[in-house]
């Protein structure tokens, strides 16, 4: 993947001059600055030399210096990643639970009222642009009924607890700072709802299809023949079997959720990685954009790996000996 990113950059920006502009960031620079950068970063060296130095640097966690904040990129990412990860993970858990529920309800009442209601809901959820969804949520809960705060991670008047893990909720809980914990919890609800609602449509759809598939299987008929009640068959046999595709899907959804987080964090001014990425696109901070992209790619790969392991836990048939 690093290779892909590297080659894409070099295909798009073939000359050292163009590359140097990337390192400066922004749009104000002089010719002398450009030449200085070319010498400093060895941009006129052969491409394979550049590739290996890039690779080695990234493996050491060195993504370069942020051209806006003038600090190493890793320092910023270290701060922002846990914030985003926290609410994306909570959102995905909610979304999967919701999707499993609505999907199985829709499948067991196929082509009747509950199915239609759920279909309308998930179609809207799926097709709605994330920004519209987030704005509506913000309007309804924060401005109209005023039950939840409209933006920020936590009440800015409170002193944040010391950083231990980087995850705001976890940190507050570890240090027993419950007022801060409460405040974070209040602020996290809307972004989580937005991401969960944006993603639950596809989960529902797949769950419905897979449940319908499983309901036709012989082993379900066998369970009925054994005299088990409808509920027992559903819980014991149908649900477990139809859950399998959801695991793969959830790993894929993780990527979509992070992409959605870019928009959602911008609307809720929730200062995590997505907000950072948005800021970088506005200020043309190329290095920040590239390193964020790489980090997100790596985290999606990790999510897929976890999904593979979960697969074996849920479905004994794919377990390795």
């Amino acid at each position, binding site marked *: 993947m690093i290779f892909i990113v590297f080659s894409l950059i070099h295909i798009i920006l073939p000359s050292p001059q163009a590359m140097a502009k990337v390192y400066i960031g922004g749009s104000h620079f002089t010719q002398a600055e450009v030449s200085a950068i070319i010498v400093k970063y060895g941009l006129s060296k052969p491409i394979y030399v550049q590739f290996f130095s890039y690779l080695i640097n990234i493996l050491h966690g060195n993504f370069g210096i942020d051209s806006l904040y003038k600090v190493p990129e890793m320092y910023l990412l270290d701060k922002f990643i846990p914030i985003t990860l926290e609410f994306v993970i909570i959102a995905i858990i909610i979304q999967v639970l919701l999707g499993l529920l609505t999907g199985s309800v829709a499948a067991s009442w196929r082509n009747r009222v509950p199915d239609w209601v759920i279909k309308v809901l998930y179609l809207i959820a799926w097709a709605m642009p994330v920004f519209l969804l987030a704005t509506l949520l913000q309007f309804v809960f924060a401005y109209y009924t005023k039950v939840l705060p409209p933006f920020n991670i936590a009440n800015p008047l409170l002193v944040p607890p010391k950083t231990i893990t980087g995850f705001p909720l976890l940190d507050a809980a570890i240090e027993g700072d419950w007022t801060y914990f409460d405040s974070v919890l209040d602020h996290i609800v809307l972004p989580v709802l937005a991401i969960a609602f944006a993603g639950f449509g596809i989960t529902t759809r797949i769950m419905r299809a897979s449940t319908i598939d499983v309901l036709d299987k012989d082993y379900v008929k066998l369970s009925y023949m054994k005299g088990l009640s409808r509920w027992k068959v559903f819980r014991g046999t149908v649900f477990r079997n139809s859950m399998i595709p959801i695991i793969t899907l959830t790993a894929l959804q993780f990527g979509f959720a992070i*992409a959605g987080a870019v928009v959602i964090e911008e609307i809720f001014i929730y200062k995590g990685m997505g907000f950072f990425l948005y800021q970088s696109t506005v200020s043309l901070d190329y290095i920040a954009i590239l390193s964020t*992209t790489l980090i997100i790619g790596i985290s999606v790969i990790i999510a897929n790996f976890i999904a593979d392991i979960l697969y074996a836990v849920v479905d004994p048939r794919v377990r390795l000996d």
Partner: protein
Amino acid sequence: MNISNIFKKALGSRKDVDTFSKKLPENLSLWYYVLHDVQALTGLIIIALFIIWSIVEGSLQIVGDYLRNPALGWMLLPHNPLAPPNYALSLKPPSMAFIFGTNLEGEDIFSRILYAAPKDAMAAFVVVGIAILVGGLLGTVAGYFGGWLDEALMRITDAFLAIPGLILAIALSILIGPGFYSVLVALTIVWWPIYARLFRGQTLTLKYRGFVEVSKLFGANHLKIIFKHVFPNAIDPIVAYAALDFGTVILTYSTLAFLGIGIQPPYPEWGSMASNGLSFFPGVWWYTLFPSVTILLIVISFILLGDKLQDIISGRLTY
């Protein structure tokens, strides 16, 4: 049954392909099913209107550009979508004169939505079209020949698929530079790997089918087999997937525009219109709501149609 009949059948039509779980009865066409389904029909009508409008409006814009007479581009619209700022008309609520209200610069939102439509249609069709061609070619070749070529291509697509599409598109279009075409290029780069995956999956199931084996026996070369037998048979389920995908492209495209990447002002774009309206949101609801609802409507139509097509043509796609 004599032997030439068997060969004809094996070599012949696409009706032999029984990988699809729901086979169409011979006498009914695909259109029959689409036209007799309320949801798919609704989707189809909205999409048809959208496409016809985009073609008419798009060609007017192109002709207008060519003749250096941009006014031709808004000949059919009630108001000039690119009018110079007129703050007397700023932020007017929907009325008879301005059906969807006006924006901060006093431009008619309805006209701007219609003016932006061809660009969205073009983005969807160009991106998915090129993705199908490039992905289809690479995926079919990878699946057909297998071996190291397959491995290499699939690792490349894996790497692409690992990075969420929206984020890679942001990074690429920022690197290429601002503008409509850079977004198109970025989206195309992001979009082809999924089609390569789909085509490879289809090719793997088709590779050992009778008609491919038979044409090998007849001495057909690889190129002919790929283009005459594998590709046409693989494409049906993928078209159904693509119908769904048009909606996704429009959604991604407008999200990019929302983030300020893509067509630059004063040219209208649904996503950026919604984004501009956000700062006035609760009071001036029409500014954000109408462009967003347009996106919603178009995407839902594509999903409804694509869903039905997928039900009809294929059972399920394999990667």
